[in-house]
C-alpha cells in the first residue's frame, strides 16, 4: 500500500500498539535544555530510576542565557540557578552537555542539525514546541511537556496517538524578496493558528524543493504555529549534502547503510493524506503580522482585515487594541522601535548573510535599536570568518552571543512595554518579547530593511 513519508518513519518506530489507538513510539534522539528538564530529572530521581539511554541525549543551555559577556558568571540569580541545575544534572547522569563557552553551544534547534544529530528518518523530541524544526530533514520531530521528558529519560519511548496527515504543496517560482519565513507566514495566515491541530504536515512542491536546508528549517520550525505537532520535508540531495561530514553524522559504511534507508523516505505515488492544500508560489509576497497570533499575517503592502472569519469580534478587537492598530488600516509608514534578528526560526548563517548583504554600506535609522543574535557558537564563528560582524557593526547592528534571547524575553533581552519590534522570531503573542511588547513577525530581509528605514515599508521598492 502506498505510504506517506510520515507513515514510513512513524511505523519504523512503533515498539508496540496498545488498545485505544495509542502507540509506544521509540525516540532516537532527545534534546534537553535548562527550562523544561529540571523537574524531569527530579521525577526520575524521586522514583529511583536511571536514564535508559543517556547516549541518545544531548543538552545545552539556551533559553535563559545572557547574550553578552557569556564568559562571565550569569548575573540573574534564577537564570544562573537553572543553568547550574542543568550542568549538575548532566554531570550526575553523565549526559553530553554543551555549556556556555563550548564551541557547540547554541539554540537547541540550531545545534542539532549543524552537529549531524538531526538525521533523516529519525524520531526526535525536546521539551520545546519548536522541535518541529528538525522535520526539515525528513525526521519526525515534535515538542513535548516535562512529564514526557521524564518518560523519554526513563524508557526512550512515548505513548502517542498517531496524528492525521496533511500535505501542503507549493509549486512554482518564488517572487523576488520572498524567503522561507514569508512562505510559512503565508501558509499560517491561510490555515489559521489552529488549522493544523491534530495533524503532522508534509511540505512539498517545486518551491519547497528549491530551498536550502536553512530555509526548510524555518518552514518546519513554525508548523507548531498553526497547531501542527510537526512538519517534515522529504530528504533529497540538498539534505544529504548538508548532513555529510558533520560531527555526528554517519561515516563510511554507516553512511552507505544510512543512505539505503534515507533513499526510501518519500511519500509514495498515490499515498493519501487526510488533508491537502495547494498554493502557487507566485501568490506569496513579503509578509508581516499585525496581531497577537502568528495566523494574523498579511502581505506587507496589504491592509489589516476588517474582521477575521475564524475569530470572534471580541478576540480580534482585543488583539488590535493590544497592538495599537485599527482594523482596515495599512502598516506602511508605521515607525518601529526595535528590530530583533534571531531565534530558532531565523538565526542561521544564511539568515545573517541575507541581513549583511542588505545592510552593507547602509546605516540603521536613529529611532531603531537593532539586535542580532546568532543561533549558535558555530554560526557566530562563521559570521566572523565572513566579516559579517564588521558589516553589521558598521550598519549600527549589535551582534550578540548565541541564545533564544528576545524571542521570549527570559533573559535580559526584552522589548519595553508599548514598543514595536519587527522580529524574525516565531511568536507575536502578547508580552512574548517582554510585558506589553508589540511584536510584528517578518523575514530577515524585511527586518533588515525596517531597521534601515526606521519604519515599515514596501520592501520591493528597496531591492535592486
Amino acid at each position, binding site marked *: 500500500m502506498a505510504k506517506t513519508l510520515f507513515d514510513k518513519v512513524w511505523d519504523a518506530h512503533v515498539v508496540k500498539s496498545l488498545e485505544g489507538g495509542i502507540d509506544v513510539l521509540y525516540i532516537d534522539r532527545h534534546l534537553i535544555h535548562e527550562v523544561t528538564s529540571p523537574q524531569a530529572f527530579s521525577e526520575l530521581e524521586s522514583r529511583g530510576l536511571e536514564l*535508559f539511554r543517556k547516549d541518545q541525549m544531548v543538552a545545552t543551555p539556551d533559553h535563559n542565557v545572557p547574550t553578552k559577556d557569556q564568559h562571565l558568571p550569569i548575573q540573574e540569580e534564577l537564570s544562573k540557578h537553572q543553568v547550574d*541545575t542543568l550542568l549538575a544534572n548532566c554531570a550526575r547522569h553523565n549526559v553530553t552537555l554543551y555549556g556556555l563557552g563550548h564551541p557547540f553551544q547554541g539554540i537547541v534547534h540550531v545545534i542539532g542539525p549543524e552537529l549531524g544529530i538531526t538525521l533523516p528518518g529519525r524520531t526526535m523530541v525536546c521539551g520545546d*514546541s519548536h522541535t518541529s524544526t528538525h522535520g526539515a530533514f525528513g525526521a519526525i520531530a515534535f515538542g513535548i511537556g*516535562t512529564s514526557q521528558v521524564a518518560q523519554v529519560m526513563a*524508557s526512550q519511548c512515548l*505513548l502517542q496517538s498517531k496524528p492525521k496527515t496533511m500535505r501542503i504543496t507549493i509549486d512554482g517560482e518564488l517572487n523576488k524578496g520572498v524567503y522561507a519565513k514569508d512562505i510559512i507566514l503565508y501558509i499560517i495566515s491561510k490555515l489559521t493558528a489552529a488549522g493544523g*491541530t491534530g495533524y503532522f504536515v508534509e511540505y512539498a512542491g517545486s518551491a519547497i524543493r528549491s530551498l536550502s536546508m536553512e530555509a526548510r528549517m524555518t518552514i518546519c520550525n513554525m508548523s507548531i504555529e498553526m497547531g501542527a505537532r510537526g512538519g517534515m520535508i522529504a530528504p533529497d540531495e540538498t539534505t544529504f549534502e548538508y548532513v555529510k561530514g558533520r560531527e555526528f553524522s554517519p561515516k563510511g559504511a554507516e553512511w552507505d547503510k544510512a543512505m539505503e534507508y534515507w533513499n526510501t523516505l518519500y511519500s509514495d505515488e498515490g499515498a493519501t493524506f487526510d488533508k491537502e492544500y495547494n498554493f502557487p508560489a507566485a501568490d506569496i509576497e513579503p509578509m508581516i503580522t499585525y496581531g497577537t497570533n502568528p495566523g494574523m499575517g498579511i502581505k506587507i503592502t496589504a491592509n489589516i482585515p476588517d474582521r477575521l472569519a475564524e475569530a470572534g469580534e471580541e478576540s480580534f478587537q482585543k488583539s488590535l487594541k493590544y497592538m495599537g492598530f485599527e482594523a482596515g488600516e495599512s502598516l506602511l509608514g508605521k515607525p518601529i522601535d526595535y528590530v530583533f534578528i534571531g531565534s530558532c526560526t531565523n538565526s542561521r548563517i544564511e539568515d545573517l548573510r541575507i541581513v549583511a548583504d542588505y545592510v552593507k554600506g547602509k546605516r540603521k535609522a536613529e529611532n531603531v535599536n537593532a539586535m542580532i543574535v546568532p543561533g549558535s557558537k558555530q554560526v557566530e564563528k562563521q559570521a566572523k570568518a565572513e566579516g559579517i560582524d564588521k558589516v553589521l557593526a558598521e550598519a549600527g547592528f549589535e551582534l550578540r552571543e548565541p541564545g533564544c534571547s528576545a524571542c521570549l*524575553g*527570559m533573559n535580559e533581552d526584552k522589548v519595553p512595554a508599548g514598543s514595536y519590534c519587527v522580529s524574525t522570531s516565531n511568536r507575536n503573542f502578547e508580552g512574548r518579547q517582554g510585558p506589553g511588547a508589540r511584536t510584528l513577525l517578518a523575514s530577515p530581509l524585511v527586518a533588515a530593511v525596517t531597521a534601515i528605514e526606521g519604519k515599515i515599508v514596501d520592501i520591493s521598492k528597496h531591492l535592486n
Partner: protein
Amino acid sequence: MEKFNKVVSTAVPMPIEDIDTDQIIPARFLKATSRDGFGDNLFRDWRYVQGNQPKPDFVLNDSTYSGEILVAGKNFGCGSSREHAAWALYDYGFKVVVSSFFADIFKGNALNNGLLPVQVSEAFLKELLAAIKANPSTEITVDLPAQTISFDEKSESFEVNSYKKECLLNGYDDIDFLVSIKDEIEEYEASSMVI
C-alpha cells in the same frame, strides 16, 4: 498524579479565543526548578498591572466568579510546550478546562497532570458561557466515568482516550507503564533499521 473522578463546581468564564501558554504563564516565570507555586503567576500579565496591582476587570480578580472549572474560547493552550501552563492552572485550583478546541501539546500536558481538558461543541460552549454570565452560581458537573458535562438541564458527552481515562481514574502515569515494558523496548532496539 491525583485521581480524577467527578467535579461539581461553579466556573470561571474566559470567552477569549487562542489563549496561548505565554498568557497562561509568561516565560519569565519559568525559571523554577520545581513544579510548585506556579499558580501565583497564572495569567500574570492579564491579572496584574506591572508591579503587583490586580487589574479589577480581569475575571480572576472578580469575586463574582470562582470554582474549579475554567471555561475558555477555542484553541486554548496554543503555543509553547511548557507544561508549566498545566501546573499553573492546577496549582491555582482548576481541575477542569472546558473549551471548544484544545491545542495538542497542552491537552497532553494537562492529562499528564490530572487536569481534565473537556472539549465541547461551539453551541454548548456558548450556552455554558451565557448560563455562567446570567448566574455565576451555576453548578456544572463533569463526570469522567460517564464522560459527560452538564449544567441546569443541559448535558453533552465528551471524548477522552480510553487509556488516558484509566490513568486519570486511577492516578497512574505513563512512566509506570513504559518502565514495565523495558524488555520489549530492548527487543525493538535490537531490530531497528534506523540509523
